[in-house]
């Protein structure tokens, strides 16, 4: 069965710090990976996605993620976070008609 692991449950950073959130997946078939963000009180929004091609994908709001096939990883990064990045972040895999979520990482940015 496919699964997605996010190892950081709660991350606290100061503004302007660099961010990296880990994501590992287990699935042997075609890889379709996403990062979604949920701001407080809002619905899930797509940050970025990877289907094929360049393993470094850029998303909205300055986020990027790198797909490393050998490590089964798809880590999310941002070089300098802002207070407005405070949210919950979910790594998601789509395969066999099924969307599988990681448990999420709560990011708190301290001004």
């Amino acid at each position, binding site marked *: 069965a496919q699964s997605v692991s*996010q190892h950081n*449950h709660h991350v606290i950073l100061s503004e302007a710090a660099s961010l990296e959130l880990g994501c590992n997946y287990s699935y042997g078939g*075609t890889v*379709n990976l*996403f990062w*979604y963000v949920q701001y407080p009180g*809002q*619905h*899930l929004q*797509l940050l970025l*996605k990877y*289907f094929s091609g360049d393993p470094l994908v850029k998303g909205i709001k300055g986020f990027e993620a790198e797909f490393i096939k050998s490590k089964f990883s798809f880590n999310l990064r941002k070089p300098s976070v802002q207070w407005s990045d405070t949210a919950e972040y*979910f790594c*998601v895999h*789509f*395969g066999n*008609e*099924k*969307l*599988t*979520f*990681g*448990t*999420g990482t709560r990011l708190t940015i301290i001004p």
Partner: protein
Amino acid sequence: DVKVTQSSRYLVKRTGEKVFLECVQDMDHENMFWYRQDPGLGLRLIYFSYDVKMKEKGDIPEGYSVSREKKERFSLILESASTNQTSMYLCASTAPSMNTEAFFGQGTRLTVV
């Protein structure tokens, strides 16, 4: 711009009641999903459907059923609500193509008392 609509934002129901949560999408998507979201547990898949009248169990189907009579509508049914079903419920839809993203409703916060 609205794509996935859940009928209620907040619901309060009594233990033992039958509860219907409705989800409608306007993108002609084949795949629809129901999740519950709980702190520390992320989103857990309850049921999904890849076509009209088709349904598949997700990871936590116990205590739930679903109905997909029309392509645009996917209903989640709590046959006899219990307090441990108090949660945020999220509906999503996608096209069947692998090169796609999922669209989510705003969620229904259900409280069972």
